[in-house]
C-alpha cells in the first residue's frame, strides 16, 4: 500500500491541456506548496525480464515508504525480451505485469521492446496494469487507448509532479527498434522536437520530469534544449549513471539494465520549486532484505509451465550438426522470408533434439539470444563469409538453407574454390543480390566483406525456430540432410 494520498491527472488531449496550462500560467498561480517536501523517486529501466531482484526492490521501496517521505516508482521501459522463461510465458510477459502491479509502479514509459509481443498483447497488458503508460511522441488512437502523453501526479502534501514520456525512433524508418509489423498503425514523431511542446507543463506544476526511452546521448540533448526540466529518467542505452549527472541544470539519471541496479532520486521542493536534487544507484546483486511475497511470486514465475510445453512431436529425433543446422536455417528463411540463411556450428549446442520437442529444448539448442540479421549479399560476398568460416577451424562450420556449397581445398586445407548452388542444383546468379539471414554473432564475429551493413530483424534465431516448428512443417526432410561439403582436391600429374 502506498502511504501517500496521490491523485493522477491524465493529459490525453494535449490541446486542452495546453489551454489549461496557459490558463494556469496567465490567470492563476500554482497552489501554495508546503514549506519543505522531500520526494524520493525510485526508477528501473531495461529490466528485460530479469525478475530475480524484484524481491529486493520491493523491500527497498517499502522501507522508504515507511520513512514518511513521498515515494514514487517509475519505469523507463523495456520490460520484455531478454529472458526466455518470462518471454515465453502465456500470455507473454505476464510475470512483468503482475510484479509491477505488486510493486506499486506509478508510471511506465514504454520502450521499443514493449512492442515485441505485438500491439494486441500490449493493449491487454495496459488494460490490466495498475499504472499508466506515458509517451508523448506516439499517436496511437484506439490502438493503445490507455496511453497518455503526460500525467500529473499529486503528492499528499499537494505537490504537482508533471511527467511526460518519450520513446526513441530509428533514423532510417522513423520507428522504434522493434519489428515494423509490431507497431503497424502507430505514428511516431521525433522525440526531441515533440518534447518542446511540453515546456508549458513547467508553468502549472512544481516538478517537471521527462521519463524517456531514448538512450543517454539523447537524454543529454534533451537536457541541453530544455532547462525547464528538473529531472530526466532515461533508458535504452543500458547506461550506469552513478551518481546522476547535472546537465544544464537538469538531473539526468539511468539505472543500467537487467535489474542489477535500482535508481533513487531525491528532490527537495521548497517554495513551490525544486531546490535540491541528487540521484544514484543501489546495487541489487548482493545480500539484502527481500519481500517474501514477491520472492514467492518470482519462484512461481521461474517455474514457467510453458517452458516444458511440447511444441511438436517429430517423426524422428533430429540429430547431428548438419540436420540441426539445416533446421535452424530453414526456420530463419521461412519465418523472415529470406533467400539464404547461415548458422555457425558453435551456436548449435545440442547434438540431438528429442522427438517431443519443448520450448526448453529450443533454448538449450540455441541459448545465446542472438538476433537474426538480414544482409543483402552477392554470391562473391557469400563466398567471403564461407571462406572466413572455413579458415577459422579448417573445416565446414556454417550450415545453410536456400543453397548448398562445396569448399574445395588442397591437402594443406588451403581453399582453391568455393562453389555455390541453388536449391535445385543450378549455379547461383552471380549478378543477383540475395536476402541473407545470419545471426548477430556471426555478423559481428566473422570477418567478411559486405557492402550492405545489414539490419537486425528484432527477433532471435530461437524464436524463429519455435515459430517454424509451430507452423506444422514436415520434419522428415531432416532425416538425412547435408548442404555444406568439403572436398580435398589433389594436383594430378600431367600426362
Amino acid at each position, binding site marked *: 500500500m502506498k502511504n501517500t494520498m496521490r491523485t493522477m491527472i491524465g493529459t490525453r488531449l494535449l490541446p486542452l491541456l495546453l489551454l489549461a496550462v496557459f490558463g494556469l500560467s496567465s490567470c492563476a498561480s500554482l497552489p501554495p506548496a508546503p514549506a519543505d517536501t522531500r520526494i524520493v523517486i525510485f526508477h528501473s529501466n531495461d529490466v528485460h525480464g530479469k525478475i530475480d531482484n524484484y524481491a529486493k526492490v520491493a523491500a527497498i521501496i517499502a522501507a522508504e515508504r515507511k520513512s514518511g517521505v513521498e515515494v514514487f516508482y517509475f519505469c523507463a521501459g523495456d520490460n520484455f525480451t531478454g529472458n526466455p522463461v518470462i518471454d515465453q510465458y502465456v500470455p507473454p510477459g505476464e510475470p512483468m505485469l503482475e510484479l509491477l502491479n505488486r510493486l506499486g509502479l506509478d508510471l511506465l514509459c514504454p520502450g521499443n521492446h514493449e512492442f515485441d509481443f505485438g500491439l494486441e498483447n500490449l493493449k491487454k497488458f495496459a488494460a490490466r496494469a495498475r499504472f499508466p503508460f506515458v509517451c508523448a511522441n506516439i499517436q496511437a488512437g484506439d490502438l493503445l487507448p490507455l496511453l497518455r502523453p503526460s500525467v500529473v501526479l499529486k503528492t499528499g502534501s499537494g505537490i504537482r509532479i508533471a511527467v511526460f514520456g518519450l520513446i526513441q525512433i530509428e533514423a532510417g524508418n522513423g520507428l522504434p527498434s522493434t519489428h515494423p509489423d509490431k507497431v503497424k498503425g502507430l505514428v511516431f514523431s521525433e522525440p526531441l522536437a515533440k518534447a518542446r511542446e511540453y515546456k508549458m507543463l513547467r508553468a502549472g506544476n512544481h516538478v517537471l520530469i521527462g521519463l524517456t526511452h531514448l538512450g543517454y*546521448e539523447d537524454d543529454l540533448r534533451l537536457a541541453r534544449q530544455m532547462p525547464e526540466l528538473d529531472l530526466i529518467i532515461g533508458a535504452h542505452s*543500458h547506461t550506469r549513471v552513478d551518481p546522476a549527472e547535472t546537465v544544464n541544470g537538469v538531473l539526468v539519471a539511468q539505472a543500467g539494465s537487467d535489474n542489477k541496479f535500482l535508481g533513487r532520486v531525491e528532490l527537495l521542493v521548497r517554495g513551490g520549486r525544486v531546490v535540491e536534487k541528487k540521484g544514484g544507484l543501489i546495487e541489487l546483486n548482493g545480500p539484502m532484505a527481500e519481500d517474501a511475497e514477491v520472492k514467492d511470486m518470482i519462484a512461481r514465475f521461474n517455474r514457467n509451465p510453458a517452458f516444458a510445453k511440447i511444441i511438436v512431436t517429430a517423426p524422428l529425433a533430429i540429430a547431428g550438426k548438419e540436420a540441426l543446422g539445416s533446421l535452424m536455417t530453414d526456420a530463419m528463411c521461412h519465418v523472415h522470408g529470406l533467400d539464404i540463411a547461415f548458422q555457425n556450428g558453435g551456436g548449435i549446442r545440442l547434438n540431438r533434439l528429442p522427438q517431443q520437442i519443448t520450448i526448453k529444448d529450443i533454448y538449450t539448442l540455441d541459448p545465446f539470444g542472438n538476433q537474426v540479421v538480414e544482409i543483402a549479399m552477392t554470391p562473391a560476398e557469400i563466398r567471403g563469409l564461407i571462406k572466413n568460416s572455413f579458415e577459422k577451424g579448417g573445416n565446414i562450420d556454417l550450415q545453410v538453407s536456400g543453397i548448398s556449397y562445396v569448399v574445395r581445398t588442397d591437402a594443406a586445407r588451403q581453399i582453391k574454390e568455393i562453389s555455390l548452388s541453388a536449391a535445385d542444383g543450378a549455379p547461383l546468379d552471380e549478378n543477383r543480390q540475395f536476402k541473407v539471414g545470419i545471426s548477430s554473432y556471426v555478423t559481428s*564475429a566473422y570477418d567478411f566483406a559486405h557492402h550492405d551493413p545489414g539490419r*537486425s530483424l528484432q527477433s532471435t534465431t530461437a524464436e524463429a525456430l519455435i515459430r517454424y516448428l509451430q507452423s506444422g512443417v514436415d520434419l522428415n526432410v531432416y532425416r538425412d540432410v547435408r548442404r555444406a561439403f568439403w572436398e580435398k582436391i589433389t594436383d594430378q600429374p600431367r600426362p
Partner: protein
Amino acid sequence: MQIKMNDQTIEIFSGACVKDVLRKYSRAEWRLVKNDRKAVFDRHGHQVALDGELSGGEEFFIKSIELAKPQP
C-alpha cells in the same frame, strides 16, 4: 550505422548492441569484457552493459575495471 570503439570507426548493422560492436572491434577485447576483466564506457565515462542499444555516431572506450574505478 557507424560507432566508434577506442577511436576506431566500426560499421555495424542497424539494431546492433554494444557487444556486437565490441566483437567486431576485437575478439580478444570481447573475451576480456565478457570475463569482467575489462568494461565498456561511453564518452562521458559511464559504464554501459553489453546489451546496451545503440544509435549511429556513438562513441565507446574499453578500460580495465581497476583503471575505471574512481581514484581515492
